[in-house]
């Protein structure tokens, strides 16, 4: 009979990290290029009306919420281990966990609020 793993939260955190990694790898290169470089620099035309219709659509907002949530948890998980391994501050792990995962939770709620009240 299998006993439950000693830290049952780890699989969930890793799944969120993986989902965020996949989502950001697939979607963000194009989005960064368009939203943060091509549109501001005028390299490509930003049609306000069609952007408005697309981005404010409820399905789009739901998808954006999903992307934001998993990407934030991707950051939280990866950054936590960067602090542990890079700076060797594992003894501060309670503070680090609070900062990282807490930050991801706060960010997710904020994203939900922003996308809900557009």
């Amino acid at each position: 009979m299998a006993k439950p793993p000693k830290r049952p939260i780890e699989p969930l955190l890793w799944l969120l990290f993986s989902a965020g990694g996949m989502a950001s790898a697939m979607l963000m290169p194009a989005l960064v290029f368009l939203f943060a470089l091509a549109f501001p620099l005028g390299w490509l035309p930003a049609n306000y009306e069609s952007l408005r219709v697309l981005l404010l659509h409820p399905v789009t907002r739901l998808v954006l919420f999903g992307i934001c949530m998993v990407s934030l948890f991707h950051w939280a998980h990866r950054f936590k281990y960067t602090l542990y391994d890079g700076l060797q501050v594992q003894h501060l792990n309670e503070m680090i966990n609070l900062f990282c995962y807490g930050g991801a939770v706060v960010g997710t709620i904020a994203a939900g609020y922003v996308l809900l009240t557009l």
Partner: protein
Amino acid sequence: MADRITMQVTRYRPELESDAAVQEYEVPCPKDWVVLDGLNYVKDQLDGTLSYRWSCRMGVCGSCGMMVNGEPKLTCATFLADYAPGPVKVEPLRNFPVIRDLVVELGDFMRKLVAVKPWIVRKDEKPVSQGEYLQTPDELDEYKQYSMCINCMLCYSACPIYGLDPNFIGPAAIALAQRYNLDSRDEGAAERMEILSQHEGIWGCTFVGECTEVCPKHVDPAGAIQRYKLTAAMDWAKSFVLPKKGAGVREQGAD
């Protein structure tokens, strides 16, 4: 090309000193000599007090692992001439306590290896009269790569996580657990899951990937670990939907 090379060898003699020191030896450097040949020359001709481990000198026993110019290598498989004109630095395998000179303490790994139960675990053993367990080539292919591990510990030297936290179970132990988890004859995946799913088990790994890079047998322990993370995570997720389907199911859904 030079026909001699200087080896800068770490010495640690606890009865004489409290820290490591470097001693230089000049050894011949024929084209076909490996670093181990250089060390044997030192021991035979120059300084018989040098201590180090070696055995098969052909890359299958895993005894002669050391740091050569900062990289974990099997000294029987690393050519001295590749470091010409030298000097070439030879240090004990990193991340392990040093007992003496180039000899490191491997008890930690040995305990971890036993903990992952690296043997076929079955509820019922077939009696000999019923013949062998049959296995197809595809079933062998599932775990064969992980069975190539020679326990040389180069992966532990390359792993910064193990260097930072000696409680981390480490690449070779997890790869060997996978070798049995993925073996069609084995039924012990659930038993191994408990030790592997601790924080110092698979979840401590951040996929640096250096363990796979230095492995002389191409075992790919990093791949074994990431696969197991996926298996364990899927298992965990399934346990909410299908509570009976417990932990440690083999990847192909053996039940």
